[in-house]
């Protein structure tokens, strides 16, 4: 088990290095960067040199590459050119917000997906099955940002039930009781969470449907039925547990897509997370932030894959020994 994990981790390292190299090359090749804003036409050349030296821009590319790599691995993400703050700080401010959103999305995704998929399996070929299939396909084919816009339009403006932006109520949060605060956070998490997760929920519903269908066909289900257990108990107690296994294993694989989807959803709901950070860093060409973000991002992808692999090996012991 340990060896398996270790192997997977070791395989992940070149992956991370590869991604960072790719990003570094891309950013290197871009003309100009955020330091341009420090220079006015009057800035004398000595000052220019001073500032460039401060950011390490006077060194040739390959030296900078090595330095960047070394720094990343020791946790030093450098300073943002745009904000003049340690990138680590900036990323650590944004990351928890995105993680909250991702967690909420995962919960919604799993709940909705598993429930709908189960209904579909149990009522295979019935109206519920077809209906949910069509609805699934509909939401699966929808751009997440469009869904976010529609949700915002309908549920925050036409019928103002939910807040239209932010993580917490900007005004009253500080004065709420802890219970109210949690409720407030939940209220703010719903719409972005739904927008982010519905498409994936549809995918999970399909997956769950086929998984449960396969399980239902198994002998032990017939045995349970023969024992005289009520149908729902058969399905839930015996069927679901096994049907859920493949769903859980792909849990880790959902993370990267949640993070990429958050780029769009965060913009619309003014959610101060990593997605917005990456987009604004790219627009302002803030190199250290871009590299820092992608580094964290890749780590999360690797972590997600690792979790998926581990869970899968737990479920299917044959994998461990391959």
């Amino acid at each position: 088990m340990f060896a398996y994990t270790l192997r997977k981790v070791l395989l992940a390292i070149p992956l991370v290095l590869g991604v960072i190299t790719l990003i570094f090359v891309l950013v290197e090749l871009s003309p100009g960067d955020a330091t341009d804003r420090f220079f006015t036409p009057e800035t004398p050349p000595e000052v220019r040199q001073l500032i460039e030296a401060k950011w390490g821009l006077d060194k040739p590319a390959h030296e900078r590459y090595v330095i960047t790599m070394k720094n990343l691995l020791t946790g030093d993400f450098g300073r943002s050119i745009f904000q003049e703050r340690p990138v680590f700080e900036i990323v650590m401010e944004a990351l928890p917000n995105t993680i909250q959103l991702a967690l909420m999305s995962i919960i919604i995704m799993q709940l909705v997906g598993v429930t709908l998929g189960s209904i579909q399996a149990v009522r295979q070929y019935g109206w519920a099955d077809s209906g949910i299939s069509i609805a699934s396909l509909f939401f699966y084919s929808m751009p997440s940002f469009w869904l976010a816009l529609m949700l915002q339009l309908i549920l925050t403006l036409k019928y103002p039930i939910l807040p239209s932006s932010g993580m917490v109520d900007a005004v009253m949060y500080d004065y709420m009781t802890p219970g109210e605060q949690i409720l407030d956070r939940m209220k703010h998490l719903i719409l972005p969470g739904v927008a982010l997760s519905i498409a994936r929920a549809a995918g999970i519903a399909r997956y769950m449907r086929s998984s449960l269908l396969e399980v239902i066909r198994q002998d032990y289900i017939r045995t349970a039925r023969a024992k005289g257990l009520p149908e729902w108990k058969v399905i839930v107690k015996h069927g679901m547990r096994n049907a859920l296994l493949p769903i859980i294993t792909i849990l880790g694989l959902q993370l990267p897509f949640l993070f990429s989807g958050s780029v769009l959803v965060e913009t619309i709901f003014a959610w101060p997370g990593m997605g917005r950070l990456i987009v604004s860093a790219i627009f302002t060409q803030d190199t250290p932030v871009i590299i820092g973000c992608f580094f964290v991002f890749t780590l999360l992808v690797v972590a997600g894959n690792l979790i998926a692999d581990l869970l899968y090996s737990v479920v299917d012991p044959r994998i461990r020994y391959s």
Partner: protein
Amino acid sequence: MLRHAIWPALVLALTACSGETPTPETPTGDQAAADEPKDRGFGNEPTVDELGGAQDTLVIAYQSDADNLTSVVYQAAADGMIIDNINYSSVNPEFDCELTYGPELFDSWEWNEDQTEVTVNLRKGVNWSDGTEVTSADIDFTYDLIADPVVASPRMAYVENMVEGTPEVIDSHTLVFKFKHAYDRTTMEAHISFTPMPHHLLKDADRATLRGHEFGTNPIITGPWKVADWKRNERIVLEPNEAFTGADKDKARIQRVIIKVLPEYATRLVELENGQVDLAQAIQVEDADRLAAEHPEIKLYRRGWRSQDYVAWNQLDFEDYKAKKELHVGEEDWKWEDVDRHPIFGDTATRVALSKAIDVDKLMNDLLTSKVTGEVYAKRSVSTITPALCNVHNNDIEPIAFDPTAAKADLAAAGWTDTDGDGVLDKDGEKLAFTMMTNSGNPRRAKGAIIMQAQLKDIGVEMEIEAIEANTFFERLRKKDYEAALSGWSAGLFVDMTDIWHSGDKYEFNFTSYYNPDVDALIEQAISEPDPAKNAELWKQAQAKIYEDQPYTFLYWMDEIVGVHERFKDAKVDVLSAFRDLRSWWVPAEEVKYKR
């Protein structure tokens, strides 16, 4: 100085020029009942004690987050806005056809005879929030920072004309600023009144990394507000500064100001409508109409004539310009006499004709007029000086009338006729065809370009439109790599046409390569003429000459629409800022929304 006024942080607003004190306008016309609390008038607002009890919170929707609250180096718009509020300003700006300064931190000041030296007396007893008094050491230190190239302050131009760049300290509350020569007094006063930085705290700070100093996120302050909370990209909370040493009437009457960072226009509008924010800027005309109809609780204010759109015609042949520029590298005063003129725009008569063919009224009507009330949120422009500066703006210039027939005749007289019958005028084998570039992401300009394209087509001019990403667009303007451009200016309150209209390659905002020696002379005289009347006369002459030459086709000045919830009385949404002097805004006790 206009160059620096363009700087986003210094975008300033101006009122309509009127003889009396400016008041906010409300198109809703829904007058409050007689017994409802109304504005008391500026200077007469109830004090905190008179209001007693619950105080309200003001929520402002802002487009971007602040970066850095260190005054000498900040660049973001949000930074400037907050710095102004958390610091006791050196001078108190007032605007009535011109900008004048009254005393604040600078208790009094005196100019010498030839306006090259000014002695400033500081008010006593103004403290930093850590208890230390503000003294002239702070001011001296601040200007030292600005002048220091290592700091690379965007405000270095402030000290350009000062002797040694820093003032002379006489005693703890007196100092003298010395200038090399006199120029417009208000501008000089602006240059001496920059927000001070605390000498006692930062004197040993490393200047090269000043931008990264924690002062930028956690400053000590002198003003009526302090930054109570700052969640990046989410919100900034300002609360009254208990250590504020100003007078009672200067103390903040609102309990909190929350600046909500909402980058999306649609979200800001949605939240204004459902009451989650109380103030939003730059509301579009269609939305203003709807707000007026559906939301009487939102008061709409107009801030006029702070920015304009114009069409620039490049008078030089770009290829030749590029080639010749390389020959003259390093020459500060190179003018463009030997560069080939642009075949179309190099000729004044052609430019005037083109201006006649563009219907500016239609542009204003289509782009900036309410379809519901017919209200026009724009004014025809004839100059780069805003009409709000009514003493300096040349109000006698007659804008060119829309006359396509005359345009065609003029072009014919200049040699442009349709010799090959393809619908496009030509001359000597060269077609009257060109590309107009504008920056992408601006629907008003995109539509304006399309309208102008159609109008020019009617007289046989073929125009293509190119929408370019903003940074590249400005690059190309500065390099003069374009033919025609639809662009805009934000107007400053300081009159200085040098950067835009003085010839000489070093003035990088002279995009059109405009060269009129008379105008050059007028400008040079005006910027060193301290007498306001003579000064104004010179500027008016310069404006008239420039308008005759039509280096731009001047289009229109625009009004900004700001929406504020009407429970805030005596809101100052006109002079200089979309929300000025926040400490004097108040809410009657019975209308308070956010009770603690």
